[in-house]
């Protein structure tokens, strides 16, 4: 804080915008005077839809509303820094797995859900925004990975990974595709995309306490199941069947699928609008698990809006998050504009006929998904976990790899 004040002082002296560096968006957020609501959201998919919804709030309440879209990967850090410098917006919208970090920094407030609101939301979405027994955000999307298939090449949804590989390899042998499956791995790994296979083979990330909260002392990667799970995944890798490859990443998987180089792709429902623009006939189904394994559970991620603890207009922020966003008509307006998978059950019923694939994705998430942990310790898991996965796909020994990853994670979270 003191350093920031110093910077403030000097920044003013030398007529620079060091103010902005300290707080970010100072001019609008901390300017005072106007009595409008300030919302920060990620500039990715849905940013414009959020603007439309916020506009409506402004019209209904007769207050100016300003939505600032920031790059999604910087939003959380910027928000925490801005809260520290008393330049925080009133509302911030982002993924539910930020909650742990935002709460430990004291930057967001819990909200009370009315019983009617709670009933309208997907139970898993409510659970996702619940942290230490408190509800912190109003969910408006609920995403999990699905399996896309090219219905020209593969008319039937595969029931197991083995089915998928058999179909893919037949197509490959016939010269109709070059890759069996587009599942993003990349050189440094991507544990999010591998999680369905990992869970089907018996793996988990953190153990859960009886109340459903995550237990950071029970690290799934250190459990014996993790090794056997990665043995099964390694068998699909570059030295095995060649289904999983490091050369396929989230940067090229979509083009592999839309160019017809593969019949199957594991991706999120946020790709549905992109695929609708392509010429490939497609359908979605749950990501299949191993024939002799358990169900394949993708991670569920929820986008939600949160009330900032240090916003200038807390009452307006609370009204926006707790009383406005919770309304099904508002959630429906957002869904219509963003074409996102809704968290509201009312909206889900409304779109069943008009957007069947979106509804299907919602059902897949509700039936097979697991909530991505929002505890701060999760940040320490992703990187070593992904690298271990990439190494196993490359053909490394699962046991040494997983043990090294678990040791690194334990060291980082002090567990």
């Amino acid at each position, binding site marked *: 804080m003191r350093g920031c004040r110093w910077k*403030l002082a000097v*920044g003013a002296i030398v007529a620079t915008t*060091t103010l902005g560096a300290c707080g970010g968006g*100072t001019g609008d957020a901390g300017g005072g005077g106007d009595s409008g609501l300030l919302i920060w959201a990620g500039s990715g998919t849905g940013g414009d839809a959020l603007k439309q919804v916020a506009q409506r709030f402004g019209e209904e309440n007769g207050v100016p509303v300003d939505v600032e879209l920031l790059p999604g990967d910087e939003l959380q850090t910027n928000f925490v820094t801005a809260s520290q410098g008393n330049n925080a917006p009133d509302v911030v919208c982002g993924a539910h797995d930020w909650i742990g970090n935002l709460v430990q920094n004291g930057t967001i407030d819990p909200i009370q859900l009315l019983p009617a609101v709670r009933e309208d939301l997907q139970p898993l979405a409510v659970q996702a925004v619940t942290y230490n027994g408190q509800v912190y955000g109003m969910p408006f999307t609920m995403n999990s990975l699905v399996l896309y298939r090219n219905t020209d090449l593969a008319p039937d949804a595969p029931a197991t990974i083995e089915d998928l590989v058999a179909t893919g390899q037949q197509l490959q042998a016939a010269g109709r595709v070059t890759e069996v499956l587009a599942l993003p791995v990349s050189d440094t790994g991507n544990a999010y995309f591998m999680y369905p296979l990992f869970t089907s083979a018996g793996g988990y990330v953190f153990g859960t306490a009886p109340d459903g909260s995550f237990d950071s002392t029970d690290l799934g990667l250190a459990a014996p199941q993790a090794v056997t799970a990665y043995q099964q995944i390694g068998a699909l890798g570059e030295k095995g069947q060649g289904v999983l490859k490091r050369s396929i990443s989230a940067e*090229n998987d979509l083009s592999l699928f839309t160019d017809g180089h593969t019949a199957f792709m594991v991706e999120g429902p946020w790709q549905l609008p992109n695929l609708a623009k392509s010429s490939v006939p497609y359908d979605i189904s749950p990501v299949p698990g191993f024939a002799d394994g358990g169900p394949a559970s993708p991670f569920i991620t929820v986008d939600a809006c949160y009330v900032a603890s240090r916003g200038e207009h807390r009452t307006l922020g609370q009204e926006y998050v707790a009383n406005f966003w919770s309304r099904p008509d508002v959630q429906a307006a957002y869904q219509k504009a963003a074409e996102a998978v809704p968290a509201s059950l009312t909206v889900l019923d409304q779109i069943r006929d008009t957007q069947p694939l979106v509804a299907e994705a919602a059902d897949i998430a509700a039936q097979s998904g697991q909530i991505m942990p929002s505890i701060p310790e999760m940040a320490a898991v992703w*990187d070593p976990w992904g690298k271990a996965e990439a*190494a196993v796909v490359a053909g490394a020994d699962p046991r040494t790899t997983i043990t090294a990853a678990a040791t690194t994670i334990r060291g980082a979270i002090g567990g």
Partner: protein
Amino acid sequence: MARSTVDVDTARPTGSPPGGRGRAGLGVGSDGTSSPLGLVLKIAALALLAAVAVWGAVPLVRTQNWIGLAVLVAVTLLGFYVYLSPRTIPLKYLLPGTLFLIAFQILPIVYTVATAFTNFSDGHRGSKEEAIAAIEGASVQQVPGSPVYDLTIAADGDPSTGDLVFLLADPTTDQVFAGTSDGLAPLSAADVQRSDAGRITAAEGYTVLDVAQISDRQDDLTAFTVPTDDGAIRNQGLSSAFDGAPQRAYDAGCDCITDAASGRTWTADDGNGAFVADDGQTLAQGWRVGVGLRNFGAIFTNDVIRSSFLRIVVWNFAFAFLTVLITFGLGLLVALALNNPMLKGKTFYRSLIILPYAMPAVAMYLVWRNMFNTDFGLINRILGTHVNWLGNTASSMVAILLVQLWLGYNYMFLVITGALQSIPKDLTEAAGVDGAKPFYAFRTITFPLLLVALAPLLISSFAFNFNNFNAIYLVTQGGPFSPDNPSAGGTDLLITYTYRLAFGGAGADYGFAAAISVVIFLIVGVISVLAFRRTRALEEVN
């Protein structure tokens, strides 16, 4: 400006405007501002300074940052004094540069070093008071069995000064209440008007506030609750209110936090900036404290760091040195080739070479990474190979240096071309007359002269590449990683490696990151000092 050496008090410079006569004491016209244009510019600049100072003062006053305001006022006054007084001629030249030096070089370094001795990190950002407020605020829970009221915010009397009143309608029982800081009092149904949804729209004796009026009274509203038997009714937005009670409360007597439901206590540990229970469990919300040399100790005692540190330092030096060497080498060759007077279309070739330099490096790094893709990358397709370029350490080192070469040689070409123009032709011609072969002349005359001119640039290029985070992070992400060590990769630089350590845990650890920055700063600083010494030796030879 050459006139600045003249003693302005005794000898008036020639050509000063008549208006300045006899007003030497005010400074105008007597300090070298001799032309009307200069005077106008000076007035404009000082006016701008004053405007900026006022602009900067507003947020400082609003946040009650009196130290900052004092510094602002002092510096502004200093600026006016220096540029209005006739006695401060050297300062007129030095002041802006000095202020910028302090603001952009010295303060960040001081701030970084200061941070290195704290536990500043996610969960330890603010003060203890902020942590306590966050813990208590996050523990407010609805009193079991209590309703969520439909709320109308009103005032007793004047909208902007009257005491706040919550007009509450209980949707389950349809009763209406007026909540004040004294408590809840039932209202007669006859005294209120209600909307179709049941919310109170007007009540006898109270003024209902509109949204703008409520926003103006946010501070009053934050402090306002309606006490009840089990807790207090607080508003949630404009239209609902609930009876809530904090489950955790701070007790100054034991300097601890107590949980009402479980009776558990967490005692403040001011050495670590956290509330700790007897069994060692800590609350997530901590505060910022000084931790002495602990962050530095962590660097030198961490097993993971020790095991990979030396290897990374060696590669870090090799990466920076080789990047400078190959970009300089290729740049030199191309510059020499294009410096040949016989060559036609030099401008065209030169612009062609500079073109990549004009593209954003960040985008180019990503493009190159895709070109190195094993199955779908351009390089393997053109070569007809199936090499996993970024999959093993040696080839990814080659790959990253290749990218650096492509991105960097144009810059070297540019500066070498410039330096070549400034080397007098007669030197090489004289050498030719004396019978020196062209390469001998180049080696003994042109090249040493080039080095004298470019050595500082090469050193700064080395220092820049020593910490070239983007190059590594965007192309290889520090990889490849050996399966048994996910925290140190084959092409990691100190900066990417430590970034992973400092920000790869449960939240960002700025204190640790600052400590590592200080260590890297010392390494680079020592090298730069040694290198500049060497350069001076070069100049002496010359």
